[in-house]
């Protein structure tokens, strides 16, 4: 095989891609198709709760078109990081949609499901053996932290995908995956250069994000050859330049010259970008350096309680001058009201003032200036939903009627846009595991289950 054509359906299955782009992609006769379906970007809630960021109907639309295209062409289709977070409930939700579509459209195929939830005992053993390492400023992993996690997933690399492909899978549905493994596994199996294959994968896993205009929710074709790869957006209105492709390595990456995979490091310092025509750019020179010991990235969350919020606006100048005083006065009133039933560490109460310092949490370059209208989000978190409701309710009414020196608008401090004013946010989670685990065989924790669909 001297040329491998890989079609990336989009940057996140469910966000919606143009059908014509997919048809154009299929007309380029790809050997394999892939789609990414997850990320940690939307925060810890999805891994904790088992919910998905994209709704069932969105998945059904995107998977409906893409699965039909892959089956019609008879090429393998790989979906990674199923259902946003890649845990078992996420894989099961996408699997359910897939079965429904197979039934609706009469597809028959061999399916490989690869789950990525890790057994707590497996992780604790690595902790005991000193094989885990903290990233960033997180504390080192402990057995207690593992025990209090709701769910832990490991980002699978190439190996489980290669096993699924070698086993003859037509469709692969995987839990939490390295985005690159989705698009590199087939190339690795066929013996293509891993530096080029990983670099190409790293670009096309975001769909046509590297194109002009930017199109994360659009299809792109990667063609891998012996000493280079070539990219072409499948939306005919999009073009590529060496600069747009090179610049993509900036995106969501701490370092544009290097990235790390469980199998090793990809070095882009010598990569060269060459314009072929308006729609195509070739890349060569990217290098793979294998790691002495493979690592697995772990993601885990713990439950922090339940959230209730309210949103309101303020315009009164005297009030806006006294926000800090009102905030501390309301917090003191709430503490007084719950005294005897809730200890201070049994609830959290926060006010975010948009139009003052809502985003950054501190004064901007112009000092502590406020806009002429300021929005407040009040947030209560407590051990159960009804306690959060009560704390929030006390804070909301306390704020509405809070008095302060020089107050003129004595009827009420808040403009509520909605009735009811309070909203339950449900369970709240926190990423507390984002660690690396060393292991002999990075593929070992991931079983490949084959089934017949249809």
């Amino acid at each position: 095989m001297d040329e491998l054509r890989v079609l990336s359906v989009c940057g996140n299955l469910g966000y919606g891609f143009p059908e014509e782009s997919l048809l154009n992609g299929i007309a380029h006769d790809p050997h394999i198709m892939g789609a990414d379906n997850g990320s940690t970007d939307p925060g810890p809630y999805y891994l904790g709760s088992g919910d998905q960021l994209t709704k069932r109907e969105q998945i059904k639309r995107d998977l409906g078109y893409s699965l039909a295209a892959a089956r019609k062409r008879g090429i393998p289709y790989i979906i990674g990081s199923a259902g946003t977070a890649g845990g078992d409930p996420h894989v099961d939700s996408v699997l359910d949609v897939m079965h429904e579509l197979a039934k609706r459209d009469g597809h028959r195929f061999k399916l490989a499901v690869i789950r990525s939830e890790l057994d707590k005992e497996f992780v604790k053993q690595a902790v005991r053996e000193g094989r885990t390492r903290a990233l960033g400023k997180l504390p080192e992993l402990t057995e207690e932290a593992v025990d209090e996690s709701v769910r832990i997933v490991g980002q699978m690399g190439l190996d489980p995908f290669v096993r699924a492909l070698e086993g003859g899978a037509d469709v692969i549905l995987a839990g939490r995956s390295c985005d690159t493994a989705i698009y590199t596994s087939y190339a690795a199996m066929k013996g293509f250069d891993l530096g080029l294959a990983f670099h190409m994968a790293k670009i096309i896993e975001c769909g046509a994000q590297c194109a002009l205009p930017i199109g994360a929710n659009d299809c792109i074709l990667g063609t891998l050859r012996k000493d280079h790869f070539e990219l072409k957006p499948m939306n005919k209105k999009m073009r590529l330049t060496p600069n747009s492709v090179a610049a993509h390595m900036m995106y969501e990456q701490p370092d544009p010259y290097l990235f790390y995979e469980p199998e090793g490091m990809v070095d882009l310092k010598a990569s060269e970008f060459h314009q072929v025509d308006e729609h195509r750019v070739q890349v060569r020179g990217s290098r793979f350096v294998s790691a002495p010991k493979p690592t697995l990235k772990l993601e885990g969350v713990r439950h922090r309680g339940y959230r209730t919020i309210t949103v309101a606006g303020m315009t009164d100048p005297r009030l806006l001058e006294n926000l800090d005083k009102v905030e501390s006065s309301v917090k003191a009133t709430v503490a007084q009201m719950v005294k005897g039933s809730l200890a201070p560490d049994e609830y959290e109460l926060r006010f975010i003032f948009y139009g003052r310092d809502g985003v950054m949490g501190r004064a901007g370059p112009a000092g502590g200036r406020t806009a002429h209208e300021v929005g407040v989000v009040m947030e209560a978190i407590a051990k159960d939903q009804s306690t959060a409701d009560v704390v929030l309710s006390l804070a909301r009414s306390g704020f509405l009627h809070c008095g302060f020196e020089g107050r003129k608008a004595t009827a009420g401090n808040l403009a509520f846009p909605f009735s009811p004013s309070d909203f339950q946010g449900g369970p709240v989670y926190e990423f507390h595991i984002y660690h690396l685990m060393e292991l002999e065989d990075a593929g070992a924790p991931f079983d490949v289950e084959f089934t017949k669909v249809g």
Partner: protein
Amino acid sequence: MPHSMSSLPRSGEMKQMERLYDIAEVFRSKNAGPLLITIDLLFPDETTFRRVSDSEALSPGIVADLYGIQPKDVKILYFDRANAIKVTIPRTGPTSGAPGDRDVYGAQQHGPLLGLMIP
């Protein structure tokens, strides 16, 4: 790192000070995982890129001051192939989306840098 005084503009072609925000074509921030924020500055051409990278307006110390963090935690990378500069900083508060966080995707964390004046 392309820091050479010799490439500073000669007095005859000295430009007025301009805000970093006004001369960058793309000025964005985003999560690089739940622990890091990465800020990308893409310039329209090499001249503008050199204008910023050769100036001393952007340094780990200056970024650290603006974000209330330590200079050693600021990583600035010059990516001349794309006429781009990347600034990566740790999240100072909770991890992305944890209680107390205010920007789950990290998409609006570039604010403190945009007013930097570039000679």
